[in-house]
Structure formats: structure tokens, C-alpha cells
């Protein structure tokens, strides 16, 4: 028998998938860490959008605390949208994406790793920053806790759905604007349940339904969208 090639998936489908996921995750995290300023720019974008709303409307506290959850969530959606090209565009430009598609690891696993890295580098910072922004909007401790819980469950869904849009628009004319048109309608349920959870706790209603639905959405998106995104990547590479 010939010596088994390195990186072969003869350790079984699951092992190969996990190895591919871990490899893509490590690689994208390392790349992101080396372009830290880009990540900081995206976080600043979130902070600035959040700052614009009181300036455009009113500094009045009661109104701000009513608008707050929605504004913080919309800003999270926009920040996620802004960072979507990070997932695939650079790798497609230098040909790495093609090598990934050719690798023996299943492409959905590699895509999952890239999506996870995208969330860790763009979604998680927003989750961490959100309490500060929530204080600016005069939300109380309980509401902030629910906001953070909702964002922690919801922003991974944004990365998962966004990856499909990012892959579909790879190398397409006007990809930046187009990806917004494709992805933002799909974000609507996340926005509703996420902002709704904070509204519910402010109104004194139980929030578990909203958070459970976000969790269910996260599970469904995590199971489905890597496959859709991988299919879209293959289409883009043809």
C-alpha cells in the first residue's frame, strides 16, 4: 500500500470535516489578527451608526430607550453586512478559494470554519460593545442582559446567512450593493426576534420565546447555510 497522503480524509467523513473546519478557522483568525485595523474600523462603524440616531432624532431619554433596542440591532445588521466581503472575496481574488474547493476536506466544513471565524472577528466584538452603546440609550441592566443574549444568539445567524449572499455575489458587478439587497430581507426575522426580546423585557413580558426562536434559528442556519454557501462558492468558481 502506498503511504497515505497527508490531509486525506481516510480518517472518516467526520474527522475530515472537523479538520477542515479547524484549519479554516485557524487560518482566517490568523489573517484577521494580522489586519486588526480593518476589524477596528468595522467596530467603529457600529459605534458611529449608534451615535448618529440620537443626533438625528432626540437626546430625550424615554424616546431613546424605546428606540434603543431597534437601533442597536439595525446597527449590528449593518456592521455584519459591511464585513461580509471578508469571508470569501480576498480568498477568491488570490485563488485560495479555488484550492479550498479542490481540497479533500468537504467544502461545507471549510466554509463553516470561515463563517465561525467571521463571527468571532466581527460579530463577537459587536456583542461585547453593545452594552456600552445600550448605556448611551438609557437601557437598564435587565434589558442590556437580554440584548447581549439576543445578539450572542443572533449575530452568528447574520454571519451564516450573510455567507450565502457573499458567496453568491463573488466577482459580480456591484457586489457591495447587491449583497445588501440579497441579505437584508433574510435578516428580518433575526432583527424582529432580537429587538423584540429587549422590548419584551422592557414591557415586563417573558423573553424566553424570543430567545428560544433565535436559538432555533441559529441551529437551523448552522445546519443549512454552510451547504448553501458552499454550493454558491462552487457556482462562483465555475
Amino acid at each position, binding site marked *: 500500500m502506498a503511504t497515505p497522503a497527508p490531509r486525506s480524509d481516510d480518517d472518516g467523513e467526520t474527522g475530515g470535516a472537523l479538520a477542515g473546519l479547524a484549519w479554516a478557522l485557524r487560518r482566517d483568525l490568523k489573517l484577521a489578527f494580522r489586519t486588526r485595523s480593518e476589524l477596528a474600523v468595522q467596530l467603529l462603524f457600529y459605534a458611529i451608526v449608534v451615535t448618529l440616531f440620537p443626533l438625528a432624532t432626540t437626546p430625550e431619554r424615554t424616546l431613546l430607550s424605546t428606540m434603543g433596542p431597534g437601533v442597536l440591532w439595525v446597527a449590528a445588521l449593518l456592521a455584519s453586512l459591511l464585513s461580509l466581503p471578508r469571508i470569501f472575496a480576498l480568498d477568491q481574488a488570490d485563488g485560495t478559494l479555488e484550492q479550498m474547493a479542490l481540497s479533500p476536506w468537504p467544502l461545507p466544513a471549510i466554509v463553516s470554519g470561515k463563517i465561525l471565524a467571521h463571527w468571532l472577528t466581527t460579530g463577537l466584538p459587536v456583542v461585547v460593545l453593545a452594552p456600552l452603546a445600550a448605556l448611551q440609550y438609557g437601557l437598564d441592566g435587565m434589558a442590556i442582559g437580554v440584548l447581549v443574549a439576543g445578539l450572542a444568539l443572533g449575530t452568528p445567524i447574520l454571519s451564516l*446567512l450573510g455567507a*450565502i449572499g457573499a458567496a*453568491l*455575489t463573488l466577482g*459580480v*458587478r*456591484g*457586489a457591495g450593493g*447587491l449583497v445588501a*439587497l*440579497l441579505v*437584508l*430581507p*433574510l435578516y*428580518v*426575522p433575526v432583527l*424582529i*426576534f432580537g429587538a*423584540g426580546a429587549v422590548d419584551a423585557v422592557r414591557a415586563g413580558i417573558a423573553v424566553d420565546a424570543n430567545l428560544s*426562536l433565535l436559538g432555533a*434559528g441559529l441551529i437551523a442556519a448552522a445546519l*443549512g*447555510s454552510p451547504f*448553501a454557501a458552499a*454550493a*454558491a462558492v462552487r*457556482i*462562483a468558481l*465555475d
Partner: protein
Amino acid sequence: MAINWYHYASPATFYPLAGRLAPWFAAIAALLAAAGLWIGFGLAPTDATQGEAYRIIYIHVPTAWMAMFVYLVMAFWSALALAFNTRLSAMMAQALAPTGALMAALALWTGAFWGRPTWGTYWAWDARMTSTLILLFLYLGVIALRSAIDDPRRADRACAVLTLVGAVNVPIIYFSVRWWNTLHQGASVSLTAAPKMASLMLSGMLVMSFAAWAWCIAAALWRVRAIILERERGSAWVGTLPGMRVVP
């Protein structure tokens, strides 16, 4: 007699079939629309609470139904296109998108005109209106993605993936928006409960729905013929059509 469906899976054989069928569906649509409008505006009684303004439902409800249904049909053709890599399925999906977008836009437009006298506002952030608006955005997204990709085969498959992702999301969007706010009057027509409308109103609406259905089929068939001609313009069979010249 068994029909060999595969025979019509080729654009070359479907093109003349679509040409034969489209005028029939257009004629059916015209007849049904004439009958439906006659029932709706001539025979059906004035609504006790909404007055004459309710008669816009003869346009509004059929277009709203078709906006949702056309998306399902588009998703069906997209799934076929992805699964079997058939060109004609993707062309059908492409042909349906503008029709569906038009239906969604008409449903919103007529809904606004109905809402003004009935609710006192053109737009309320009600669940069905909002989800129809998002459905319109989904249609426009598919159309925009199609026009942004030059290679038609890549556009076919990219749009098919997007349509299917959207199809999974449409019910989720609908229920999330409905959860978020429900101000719309309860559904007037449902399969389980007895209809709360006068039977003439109901039959007018159903006739109009079938008219909209036939019109959508006719429009999609005509559009798919144009798409076939555009995309097969280099092939020999197009050159044999009367008045055609093969582009080298």
C-alpha cells in the same frame, strides 16, 4: 395518452409549445377577468361596513395570492434546475421573477388604496403588508442578481440557490412579522372555517384569482419564449424559425 414530459424539457421543443399555449391562457385570463369584474362590480352587493371601497379586493387578493404562489413555483423550477441542471427550468424561474414582482407590487399598491378609506392610512406596519414588501424585495434581489452576472449558466444556478434560500425563509419571515405586529383584519377566507363573505363576493374573488393565475402563466410563457430566443440565438433551430437569422 401518456405525455413524454422530457420531450418538452428542451428549449427547442418547448418554444413552439409555449407559443401555442400562451394565447390560450391569455384568452382564458381575459374571459375570466371580464366575468370576475362583472360579478365584482356589477352583481356583488355593497359591503355593509366598508362601502364600495371593499371592491378593490377583486384585484388585491388575487395579486397577493399570486405573489406568494409564483414564488413557490419559481422555487420549484429552481430546485429542478439545480437538481437536474436543466436549462429550461432555470429559464422558467427567470421568466417568473418579474411576474411575481409585479404581483407583489400590485398587491401592495392596491392594498394601500384599500387601506386609505378603510383604515385611514396608506400604509400600516401590519404583518401581511410588511411580509409582502419583503417578498417584493426577495423578487427584486433575484432579478438584480440575475442581471449582475454575465454568464447565463452561472446566473441560473446562483439565482436558483438564492430562490431556494428565500423559499425556506419566506414562511419564517411571514411568521416573524406576524408575531411582531398584527393589525390586519383576520383572514376573510380560510379553508377550515365557513367563509364570512357573501357568496357573490367570494365567487367574484375566486374567478378573479383564476384570471390572475392564467395571466401569470401566459406572461411567463411569453417571457420564456423571449428568453429562449435570446439565449439560444446561436443555435441552428432558432435559425430555422420564420423571420430569424442565426447570429454567428
